[in-house]
């Protein structure tokens, strides 16, 4: 839900140490009106998300704003109700496996396309973006029909495969961004020093694009973690993810526990997003 707007900033944060870590702040001071405008946009995007947090502590039986009273009751509900807990666990499992698979596949694809250059590579790269731009419902129906035949609906494997398909483009974009500052000459140097191509990838390429890979992995995790359309189609009575359970809780039962679930999700996703920056801060102090 929240992942797409941030995508634009990924190539900047993903550029490896090869491009230097100096930042030029003195170039062209930003005018005040641009800052004000930026502020408004930020508030516009973030405010609705922030409403949900005070509501999760509300004492009222239905959704109400401003919230009345203060209680941890909804959180208690969340952490004691096996339905919520199981769906949380399922989401973590699917998202983790998706992150691993999508990062592996996406990194391989990005590196291969980067080495290939040319028209074919550009075409394939565009093709890989299709899952992002295609309407989610179209992808979902297509996946549903295919997976019915292969008996993959409602299985962990099915979820992971479907989520990987939509997560790979994010990894490709972020790794491609990191490769932008990568000097091909380094691979020649490595091979002249005795590294086979695969060794050179492990010892030179990977460390230098690690931030792009990490960013891609985080995007993949979050794309899967908050994905709802595919998950609705693939759910089974015994296996559903957290977003699906949240969807159920408002459409089927009107359970206010969703405010707690939402708040937890916002906080978790935010922390995961900030992870690379926290890591970078630590690396710089070293």
């Amino acid at each position, binding site marked *: 839900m929240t992942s797409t707007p941030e995508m634009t900033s990924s190539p900047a944060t993903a550029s490896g140490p090869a491009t230097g870590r100096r930042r030029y702040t003195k170039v062209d001071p930003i005018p005040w009106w641009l800052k004000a405008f930026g502020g408004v946009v930020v508030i516009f995007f973030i405010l609705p998300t922030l409403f949900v947090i005070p509501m999760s502590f509300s004492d009222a039986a239905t959704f109400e704003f401003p919230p009345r009273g203060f209680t941890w009751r909804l959180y208690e509900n969340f952490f004691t109700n096996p339905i919520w807990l199981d769906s949380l666990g399922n989401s973590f499992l699917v998202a983790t496996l998706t992150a691993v698979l999508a990062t592996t596949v996406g990194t391989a694809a990005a590196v291969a396309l980067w080495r290939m250059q040319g028209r074919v590579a550009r075409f394939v790269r565009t093709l890989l973006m299709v899952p992002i731009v295609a309407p989610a419902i179209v992808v979902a129906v297509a996946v549903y029909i295919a997976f019915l035949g292969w008996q993959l609906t409602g299985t962990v494997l099915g979820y992971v495969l479907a989520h990987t398909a939509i997560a790979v483009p994010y990894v490709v974009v972020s790794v491609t961004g990191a490769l932008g500052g990568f000097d091909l000459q380094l691979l020649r*140097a490595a091979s002249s020093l005795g*590294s086979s191509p695969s060794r050179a990838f492990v010892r030179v390429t990977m460390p230098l694009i690690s931030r792009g890979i990490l960013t891609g992995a985080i995007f993949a995790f979050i794309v899967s973690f908050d994905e709802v359309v595919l998950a609705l189609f693939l759910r089974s009575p015994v296996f559903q993810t957290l977003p699906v359970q949240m969807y159920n809780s408002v459409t089927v039962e009107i359970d206010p526990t969703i405010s707690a679930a939402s708040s937890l999700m916002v906080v978790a996703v935010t922390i995961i997003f900030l992870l690379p920056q926290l890591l970078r801060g630590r690396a710089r102090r070293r």
Partner: protein
Amino acid sequence: MTTPSTTVKATGSSPGTPSGTEIRLDRVTKDFGLAAPAVDDISLTIRPGEFMTFLGPSGSGKTTTLNLIAGFETLTAGTIALNGTDVSDVPPHRRNLGMLFQNYALFPHLTVAQNVAYPLRERKVPKREIARKVAEVLELVQLTGRDDNHPSQLSGGQQQRVALARAIVFEPSALLLDEPLGALDRNLRSALQAEIRRIHREVGSTFVFVTHDQEEAMNLSDRIALFNNGRIEQIGTPQQLYAEPETLFTARFLGDSNVFELGQAALGRSIVWDGESWGVDPATVAAHPGVRAGSAIVVRPEDVEVAARRDEVPPGANAVRAVVRDVEYMGSYRTLLLAMGRRGLPGRTRVSPLRGDYAIGDEIVAWWRPGAQRIVAA
């Protein structure tokens, strides 16, 4: 075009230890599918321990040839052998050749010591030995104490020193250097030239050095292979290339020269150019049984003397009248830029500041001994 068997006397320039590797290129061709092949049927033997320089204008195929030796490019035709073993199909990481790049190509995520240790770790050298060798080679390139710096914390010259250390620490069969000093300023260049020469002497392995700077080539090399349009125009010691150019291209590329094109004139005891009759050294006649169309006489500026009048020219010398076009003061000597003969062919000569004053527009006579002139193919 032809490269006759150059018989180079192994004089003082030969390296001390015979530990180097022989690199033999046999009819090597590389075609990128452009109008002409980048490397066109080159045969060349680089001797063990030799400092060989590939010199030539931009786009003449020097880098491509070096990359073929390194294994970064595949051969279109021909073979490359290291010490007699055909390596044409061996991938670069198994050729055991060190390589130095113009932009250093240090690994930015590794420290100086880790960069230098890289090839040793790839060869699974024991930890303790790695530490010893790294320290040793960093001392050789005079970078002791910078072990823990990252490349970005070093100057360009220091970075190239690290790259040099990294390229020799694993004792490669040969070191390939592609314009390694191209990105450095003048002072640093000559300092590093001296260092590269010293290291070549100390490690005694074969060096193949690419440059388009003739001065650098003259300074460093045992032999120079002069490239032109994907072929080797001439190969020989720096002195040979300068004093005995075989083609006009060689004469023009190395140093300044006065060039008198001969057209169809036949070569006998004398030769006629622009109405002037010149004597020819008998040895030259023997070497050039007939002057082909487009041949030329080449005389180096330092061999050209200046007289005020024709009767001051010593007997037996070849002379041409000339007008002083410009005077360049070079400190210890002056260069006169001349317009020679009736057609005012541009020429130049060096004169010592003691020998009178020359002003623009002065009519003089330029002369040289027949032994100083070279007849070259155009």
